[in-house]
């Protein structure tokens, strides 16, 4: 956190000053470790084992916050009899289909649940999983799988996927099939010894963490977890976060001040880019993209949510308001509010699948907007092969980047795998405006929107992306004007009339934000998403952002100094939803609505003598229906928000409870399980199942995997950022003040590894995987520890990933080494892999290819089989 979010880290230092104990769990001893109380070195990719160990510690020592757990989580919920755990099936949950390589979650349901309806997680028409599809890639059939399910798991970011039943509960937590007991059994083998064996963490150190964490989680105290892509960039990324969620729910640390799980996101508006997504599977506000198999009409589309408990029950209103924002008057009751104008997805269309599509010639036009995949995305070679096979490419950036120049200086040009005069891609490089040259809002990592005022005009041809897309839309619409082709209707009917301003004729960002906020029948801005209607009288571009323009005022532009308000600072910026700073903060009060303690007072129920006049109140905007008393019991037939009970803080979940056990929404199991990364030097100590069973592989000759336990690739590598650089480098390697601080690509290794391989500090090293080899200067440092895993040492090679071929400082890209194996829920890559490291610089030209090929052959011979695949599943 000190490395990548130094300014955010001031609050950790503040907490430390006030007596908090700071643990830093990381493969490397970083700048964060340097000021933490205890650094816990961990083998990369074993977080579930560590966190699972903590869960086991809490459960086996009965240190859970029982009152919270019983009332606010689904610990008491009873799961159907058909459920079988990984403990029963040696690493698999019930419902595994080896043919498709997918789970059927039916057996994970709450007991007594009706059969999953058609709106369930799976695409019934889908014949086989991506494995089969990949083998038949040319048909465009590949990678089709539970994409809608995945969409729903994205939707869970703001709400929950459907559990159509509130379930039977045993609040004594004794029922053998209640979640609590299942959890106990599932994690029972995550003992300190097992944690030591898997993660390389000593029992003593594990004990320190467990003891401090549990002692600091109760009525009086809360503990927080902060994480970044060290948890997410794994083929078990989602389950890493799930494990932390389970732990925090058990400890009563969710929805309370000082608690929570804090995602430290890495880009200025990466949260905004998820909320108002430029993502394939969702529409603004985590509304899923319609799926061809299920959604022929608006009614089909909202059927899964209609009648649900909680705020997702109003899905119809959110969707129709969005369609009204998109197509305005053209969207009518008669034409299903233009629902049919929405394109449908049929599977995984995520970025890595798209790249495969580019390589295979199925995707010919590409926009890169402030993104540099040739350096920043995994398996750089595949990225560049894709770019080289386009008809046209539009790159919008502030500086020249590797993704725009691959045709003349990409690594494959040097090796002869690509030739400039054979690359047909037409490239448009359009300069982009900087953050001070345009007005707009960023949503930071705590869901806070903050407005930026424009300071100066952009230089030369530089334009904001807002203006680019606005003008592109205008030009396309002009060129298509008069078309009678049905396919052009959505473009021609689009509301695309934003006021412009300034010498460059830029669209007014305020007008766009106003559209996002939404307007009522009178055309005035709405104040809250609860005002959205399903009759077409309201329009709203992103329902969770409704209220950001309340009263016609840009709430995101508020800058009341922190010294003029309390520490929650509600009048600085605007946080979705409804300016709430802590989600699910109803949980900061006990079931009766009283604060758990005076010290941790945050939101509470203020009763009133007058019936119906009681209110939730506190320092924050209560995340609850303001006048719903704690003792409210909803009617059996209630739906939507009406069905939320007074003790159901998790208002977006269909049972109002925090989910220790996720019976729906996840592609890889209702509970987290430790699996080894796709490339690992060690065997899974828990199960015969080595890797996450439904992980998604990108099968391509440019993406070969190193065999597990290979002696040819004996070391683990992990990639990361440095404080001094930003992601793929376009915003830092182009600046002298940052470049001079970290002027060269380097790798970090332990003294033991240095000795083993004859590497010297300041010298050169070549790091090799089956994908390619890169070179880096060497830093020999005791900050990297040799970890003892069982009877072997595991050495880890640290690789910052910022470098590429352009800019003031250049170097090889660590991402060229990273294989493409994806998390099955969200299709995020696994950044951990195995490698060899040798002294000296890498071969140049075609020799690089043969050098890597030779390694591959050796690795295959060494192992006696082709790179590992799912045969072990």
């Amino acid at each position, binding site marked *: 956190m000190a490395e990548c979010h130094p300014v955010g880290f*001031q609050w950790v230092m503040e907490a430390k000053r006030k007596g908090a104990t700071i643990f830093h769990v990381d493969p490397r001893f970083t700048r964060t470790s340097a*000021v933490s109380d205890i*650094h816990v070195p961990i083998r990369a990719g074993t977080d579930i084992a560590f966190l699972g160990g903590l869960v086991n510690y809490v459960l086996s020592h009965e240190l859970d916050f029982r009152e919270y757990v019983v009332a606010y989580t689904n610990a008491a919920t009873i799961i159907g009899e058909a459920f079988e755990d990984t403990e029963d099936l040696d690493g698999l949950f019930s419902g595994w289909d080896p043919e498709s390589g997918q789970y059927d979650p039916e057996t994970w349901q709450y007991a007594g649940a009706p059969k999953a309806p058609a709106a369930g997680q799976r695409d019934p028409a889908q014949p086989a999983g991506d494995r089969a599809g990949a083998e038949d890639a040319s048909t465009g059939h590949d990678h089709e799988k539970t994409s809608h399910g995945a969409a729903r798991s994205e939707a869970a970011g703001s709400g929950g996927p459907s559990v159509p039943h509130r379930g039977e509960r045993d609040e004594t937590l004794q029922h053998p099939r209640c979640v609590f007991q299942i959890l106990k059994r599932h994690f029972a083998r995550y003992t300190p010894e097992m944690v030591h064996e898997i993660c390389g963490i000593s029992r003593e150190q594990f004990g320190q963490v467990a003891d401090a964490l549990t002692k600091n989680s109760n009525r009086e105290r809360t503990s927080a977890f902060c994480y970044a892509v060290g948890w997410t960039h794994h083929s078990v990324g989602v389950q890493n976060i799930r494990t932390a969620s389970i732990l925090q729910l058990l400890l009563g640390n969710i929805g309370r001040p000082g608690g929570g799980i804090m995602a430290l996101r890495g880009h200025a508006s990466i949260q905004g880019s998820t909320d108002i997504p430029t993502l394939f599977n969702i529409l603004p506000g985590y509304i899923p993209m319609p799926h061809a198999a299920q959604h022929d009409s608006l009614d089909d589309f909202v059927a899964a949510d209609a009648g649900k408990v909680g705020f997702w029950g109003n899905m119809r209103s959110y969707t129709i308001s969005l369609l009204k924002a998109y197509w305005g008057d053209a969207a009518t009751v008669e034409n299903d509010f233009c629902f049919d104008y929405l394109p449908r997805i049929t599977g995984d269309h995520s970025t890595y699948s798209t790249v495969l599509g580019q390589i295979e010639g199925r995707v010919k036009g590409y926009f890169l907007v402030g993104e540099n995949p040739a350096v920043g995305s995994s398996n750089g070679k595949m990225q560049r092969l894709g770019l080289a096979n386009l008809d046209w490419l539009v790159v919008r950036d502030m500086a020249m980047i590797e993704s725009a120049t691959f045709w003349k200086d990409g690594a494959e040009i040097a090796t002869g795998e690509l030739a400039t005069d054979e690359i047909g891609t037409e490239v448009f490089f359009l300069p982009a405006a900087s953050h001070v040259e345009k007005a707009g809002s960023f949503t930071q990592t705590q869901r806070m929107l903050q407005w930026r005022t424009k300071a100066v005009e952009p230089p030369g041809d530089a334009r904001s992306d807002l203006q680019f897309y606005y003008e592109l839309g205008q030009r396309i619409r002009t060129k298509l004007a008069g078309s009678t082709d049905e396919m052009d209707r959505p473009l021609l009917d689009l509301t695309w009339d934003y006021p412009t301003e300034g010498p460059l004729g830029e669209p007014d960002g305020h007008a766009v934000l106003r559209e996002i906020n939404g307007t009522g029948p009178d055309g005035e801005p709405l104040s809250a998403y609860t005002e959205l209607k399903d009759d077409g009288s309201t329009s709203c571009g992103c329902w969770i952002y409704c209220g950001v323009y309340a009263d016609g005022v840009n709430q995101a532009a508020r800058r009341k100094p922190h010294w003029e308000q309390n520490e929650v600072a509600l009048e600085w910026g605007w946080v979705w939803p409804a300016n709430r700073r802590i989600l699910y903060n109803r949980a900061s009060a006990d079931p009766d609505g009283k604060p758990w303690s005076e010290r941790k007072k945050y939101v509470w129920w203020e009763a009133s003598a007058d019936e119906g006049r009681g209110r939730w109140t506190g320092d924050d905007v209560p995340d609850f229906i303001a006048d719903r008393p704690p003792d409210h019991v909803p009617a059996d037939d209630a739906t939507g928000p009406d069905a939320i009970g007074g003790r159901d803080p998790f208002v977006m979940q269909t049972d109002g409870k925090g989910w220790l056990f996720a019976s729906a929404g996840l592609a890889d199991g209702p509970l987290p399980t430790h699996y080894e990364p796709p490339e690992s030097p060690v065997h899974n100590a828990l199960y015969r199942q080595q890797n996450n069973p439904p992980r998604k592989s990108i099968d391509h000759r440019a993406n070969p995997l190193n065999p597990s336990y290979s002696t040819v690739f004996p070391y683990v590598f992990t990639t990361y950022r440095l404080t001094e650089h930003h992601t793929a480098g376009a915003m830092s390697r182009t600046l002298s003040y940052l470049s001079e601080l970290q002027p060269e690509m380097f790798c970090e290794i332990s003294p033991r590894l240095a000795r083993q391989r004859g590497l010297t500090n300041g010298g050169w090293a070549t790091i090799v995987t089956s994908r390619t080899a890169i070179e880096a200067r060497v830093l020999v440092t005791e900050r990297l520890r040799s970890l003892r895993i069982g009877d072997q040492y595991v050495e880890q090679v640290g690789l910052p990933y910022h470098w590429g071929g352009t800019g003031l400082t250049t170097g090889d890209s660590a991402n060229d080494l990273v294989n493409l194996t994806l998390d099955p829920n969200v299709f995020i890559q696994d950044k951990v892999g195995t490698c060899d490291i040798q002294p000296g610089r890498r071969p140049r030209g075609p020799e690089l290819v043969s050098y890597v090929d030779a390694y591959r052959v050796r690795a295959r011979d060494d192992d006696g089989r082709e790179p590992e695949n799912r045969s072990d599943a």
Partner: protein
Amino acid sequence: MSNSLHGRLDDVQQDAGYDQHPPRMGFFTDTSVCIGCKACEVACKEWNDVPEDGMSLSGMSYDNTQALGASTWRHVAFVEKPLHPTTTDLGLPGMGAPGWDSHENGPASAAVTLPASEDQGAESGDSGVRWLMSSDVCKHCTHAACLDVCPTGSLFRTEYGTVVVQPDICNGCGYCVPACPYGVIDVRKEDGRAFKCTLCYDRLKTGDTPACAKACPTESIQYGELDELRARADKRVDELHEKGLDVARLYGRDPEDGVGGDGAFFLLLDEPEVYGLPPDPVVTTRDLGSIWAHVGAAAGALLAIGAASFVGRRR
């Protein structure tokens, strides 16, 4: 010139001719909370338009800045030290700067210190290493040698008690460079003049915080009235001692030290030289009287020699 050349000097501005003046301002850099982010380095350069200072990987941990200089007015040092050092030479490849072994000014000890146990796994229950970071800066000495030796008056004492180069005056004589006991100031070759931290003299004029202190995310760099900072630092060091961090000590805080105390002082977690700071710096002008006396005596001796040379028989 009682205490004007060395020793304690309570009103440094008055000594420099400011009869009325604002309080003496300074920095307290608490390295115990430094996270080595180098925001100070960049903020300083942005504000003062200091040019880039070379791009080479040093091999010295994360310190590629390496030292203060004409184009580096804040420098974050990174010290990696084993927690449980032994002097066993494990025959490791060098851990120093690249080309360490053949380096002319190599480290004092060629033996690489490592944890005693071959098993450096986490089994020992700790990370086995300390990583100290410290943002170094001009000390704005009470008795500033750079200022005193400056023949043009370019280096001068401001009304805030800070020591600043006036770029419109400096003629690049370079005298300040070897005069500084901390190795702070240097001449920028391509420019010809000497440069160093100004403690953001211009910002102080309107009551603003110097750029580095303002940017510092963890309040490692604290700016304020020197008296107040000293009190704060004393409290902080006591606090750390109470927590068992006996290694914490203040550096440059003592008004009785060799430079009369620094306007920018530090809380360190190891010996000063570990951070590249002189352990007991003394302003050269402490010996100025003696120097001039010897110069005078020597001149007298020369005069005597001259006279004596003409004594005697002429032929």
